[in-house]
């Protein structure tokens, strides 16, 4: 009996050993296979390189630069992975747009880097009709997509029709196209847009329309809209880079478009790595695993003083019109904030200078209105309200909020001054700001109940107007047209005027600005609006932050233009190139 067991166990172990051995042998074999494939690959590369040296390319080389400088890679660290590379999709967030436009797809007009206006990209020029209700774009005749097919008016029309198609999931992009009534094909290379309202000469009334990427019709056309909605990857466009691969969860890689119709960029590859942990981003930068990182303000303030770090990396901090600003919205349908004096009192409770110094590491600027701080719509003469607790107390007393029942809280008509302050729980900054507000408000006899919420709940409450006050940020899609946020007609269930701001003068100015075509006049109207917003304080505009970047110093031509960084200019000198 025992013997049998002994032999059985022994045989079992022997079998196991054989299996393990076979496994190891197969691993060695596949290893050898891979090595052979790599070896062959290298031979092919070398032959191709030799061939290229004998027959140099005829394509344009920018600025007489050494041909060998054309092989650098730029590796980004993104905190969030985009869900789609289709720039029209509703799920296309800021990260999708950074990758897709202008690298893979190109628009009719693009933002200039040195001045705040639009310059031609796919469109050579445009003509505005006399009644300013029609714009005709003339496309260049030498443009083509990366697969060689020329770009024509049909592609522009296809892009537009797809966006407004109700079955296509492109809601937030389509919201920017509501002013366009029709698009007409004039000829192969010309498209005419008809508008609802007269446009301005610089066309900056609807900048997001003209800077939408143009999709190739022959690649993206569809029978069923869901087919289009599901095309999240393998984008094909006319831009200077083509899509190479997307390892979900890890990275997206773009390669230079060798068939590009314009000046080819000098960086051969753009790699976007997804690192969700901010500390890991900085570590990856320091190990030179990534080249460019978007740091948190505290990280920036920390490392900008590190000499060793500055020797290896550029520490860039600059302002653009698209940086986010943060604000508090006061719901004017509540008993507390319907009164202007109360709202003014609240702004005197916020010590913005301290916030910028301690919470943002000094990298921020106080603002008093929703417009870009250095732009023409911002009235520079307006000073933000100061931090003044005594003034706040005085205003609250005047408004009738006094502590009549001796419980430490102000009250009026039997209602205690206690309100709920709502914010998204995904930003630590909001948490700290809420606690700061709670502290300061307590000093003047107001109780603040901090309510961190999930984004979905926050958005539901905003839409149903069930909140007292909230803090949020606005950026990237900062509307230059304040209609949605400030006009009184938008205060109902589905409008964006969540705080119920109704001011006849503001309404009049907004409507008139919508009709004005002269840029200067419109800017003047916006400055008046700025003054009204400053006086009425339906929102308390807190501060804005500069754009921060850490960049590896092996890149040349890293210039901070007025509107930001132009990555298409960068290159890596051959001696410093890391990747082959």
């Amino acid at each position, binding site marked *: 009996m025992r013997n049998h067991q002994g032999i059985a166990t022994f045989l079992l172990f022997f079998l196991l050993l054989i299996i393990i051995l076979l496994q190891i042998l197969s691993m060695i074999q596949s290893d050898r296979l891979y090595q052979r494939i790599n070896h062959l690959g290298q031979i092919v590369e070398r032959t191709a390189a030799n061939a290229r040296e004998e027959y140099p390319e005829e394509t344009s080389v920018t600025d007489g630069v050494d041909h060998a400088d054309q092989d650098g890679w730029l590796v980004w660290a993104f905190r969030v992975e985009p869900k789609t590379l289709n720039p029209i999709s509703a799920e296309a967030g800021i990260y999708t747009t950074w990758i897709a436009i202008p690298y893979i797809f190109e628009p009719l007009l693009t933002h200039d880097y040195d001045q705040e206006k639009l310059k031609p990209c796919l469109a050579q020029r445009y003509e505005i009709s006399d009644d300013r209700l029609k714009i005709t774009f003339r496309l260049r005749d030498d443009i083509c997509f990366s697969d060689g097919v020329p770009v024509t008016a049909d592609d522009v029309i296809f892009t537009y029709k797809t966006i407004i198609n109700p079955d296509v999931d492109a809601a937030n992009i389509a919201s920017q196209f509501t002013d366009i009534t029709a698009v007409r094909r004039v000829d192969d290379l010309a498209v005419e847009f008809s508008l609802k309202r007269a446009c301005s000469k610089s066309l900056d009334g609807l900048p997001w329309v003209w800077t939408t990427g143009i999709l190739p019709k022959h690649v993206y056309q569809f029978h069923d809209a869901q087919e289009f909605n599901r095309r999240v990857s393998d984008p094909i466009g006319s831009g200077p880079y083509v899509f190479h691969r997307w390892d979900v969860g890890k990275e997206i890689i773009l390669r230079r478009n060798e068939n590009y119709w314009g000046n080819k960029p000098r960086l051969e590859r753009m790699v976007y790595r997804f*690192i969700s942990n901010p500390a890991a981003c900085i570590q*990856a930068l320091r190990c030179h695993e990534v080249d460019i990182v978007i740091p948190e303000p505290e990280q920036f303030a920390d490392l900008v003083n590190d000499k060793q770090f500055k020797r290896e990396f550029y520490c860039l901090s600059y302002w653009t019109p698209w940086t986010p600003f943060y604000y508090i919205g006061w719901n004017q349908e509540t008993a507390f904030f319907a009164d202007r004096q109360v709202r003014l009192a609240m702004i005197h409770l916020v010590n913005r200078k301290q916030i910028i110094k301690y919470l943002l590491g000094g990298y921020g600027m106080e603002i008093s209105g929703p417009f870009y701080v250095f732009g023409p719509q911002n009235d520079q003469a307006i000073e933000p309200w100061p931090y003044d607790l005594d003034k706040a107390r005085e205003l609250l007393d005047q408004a009738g909020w006094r502590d009549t029942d001796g419980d430490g809280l102000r009250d009026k008509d039997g209602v205690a001054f206690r309100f709920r302050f709502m914010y998204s729980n995904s930003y630590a900054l909001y948490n700290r700001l809420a606690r700061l507000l709670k502290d300061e408000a307590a000093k003047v006899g107001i109780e603040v109940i901090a309510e961190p919420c999930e984004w979905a709940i926050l958005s539901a409450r905003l839409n149903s107007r069930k909140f007292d006050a909230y803090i949020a940020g606005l950026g990237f899609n900062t509307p230059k047209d304040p209609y949605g946020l400030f006009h009184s007609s938008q205060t109902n269930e589905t409008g*964006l005027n969540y705080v119920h701001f109704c001011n006849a003068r503001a309404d009049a100015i907004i409507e008139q600005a919508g009709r004005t075509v002269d840029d200067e006049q419109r800017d003047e109207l916006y400055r008046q609006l700025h003054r009204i917003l400053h006086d009425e304080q339906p929102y308390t505009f807190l501060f804005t932050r500069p754009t921060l970047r850490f960049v590896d110093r092996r890149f040349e031509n890293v210039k901070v233009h007025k509107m930001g960084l132009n990555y298409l200019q960068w290159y890596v000198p051959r001696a410093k190139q890391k990747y082959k």
Partner: protein
Amino acid sequence: MKTYIIRRLLLIVPTLFGITVIVFLISRIAPGGPTNLSLGGSGQVDAKWTADVADSRRMLYGLDKPIHVQYADWLGHVLRLDFGYSIKHHRPVIELIKERLPVTLILNLMAFIIIYSVSLPAGVLMAVQHGRLFDRAGSLILMMLWSLPVMWVGQMLIGYFTGPAFKDWFPPAGLSSSYADQLPFFAWLVDSLWHLALPVLCLSYGGFAYLANQVRSGMLDNLRMDYVRTARAKGLPERVVILRHVFRNSIIPLITITSTLLPAMFAGSVIVERIFSIPGMGLLAFEAVSNRDYNVIMAVATIAGVLNSIGLLLADIAYAIADPRISFEVTV
């Protein structure tokens, strides 16, 4: 025994039904939905237009139908193993899960192996050396490890071991280097293990204390039993007494723990995945809940339910094998 197994397998069906109905109802009732977009551009966004768009988006995804119709639709698709499309990712849910599940499983499997191979011997040794230095020092160290929060440990590991200060001992994020799939097999294996080292360490250190303590207390109970004295009196070597007799009798609580590990593995370790930027199931499920991505939530819940049920069944069978005294036959 066979009838018992078949009965249990059949019972999985109504259990799953209950799970899916409850998860379905809760996710639908929760405020917010996947179609709430922050519509805001520089166009003159009209309130009525916004309302129309919100409605049409809901219709696009079938969210306007009554709840029981939606559930019946979903059930019909699932029975054909079609878990639908994710609203946020616009890709089939099955694809998303297929990409992320292996990552989570490997991570947790390795953590599992490490935890067990360290805790079992440690627990046994501590029980045998009860009261002596090894036991006391061991308990202390394990308790210290157990009390360190994973979030903090993860950040510390990244801060110290991945930076240039320590000459890049470990990579700061991710599962593999760029173009790793073009490396020869062994180089690829080494690269993957190099990336997995820190996350697995984070996942496993907390489990040591728990498991070692369980083993230790189980063994201590059994060491006092009479049959141990008999075995020693028989002249059996100490090692055989401890390993073959005492240890085997203290396995039962371990089986319970192991059976709960299978579903825990699936749900994933969100924190570690977040800290080390590893695209796994935990993050997928968490994001799906935040975004109210119904199809993904339901798929995760269903698969978790199936695995949980199977895990419990396997545990029950393991009990019967480990201890012949346990029998699931219906007694008259």
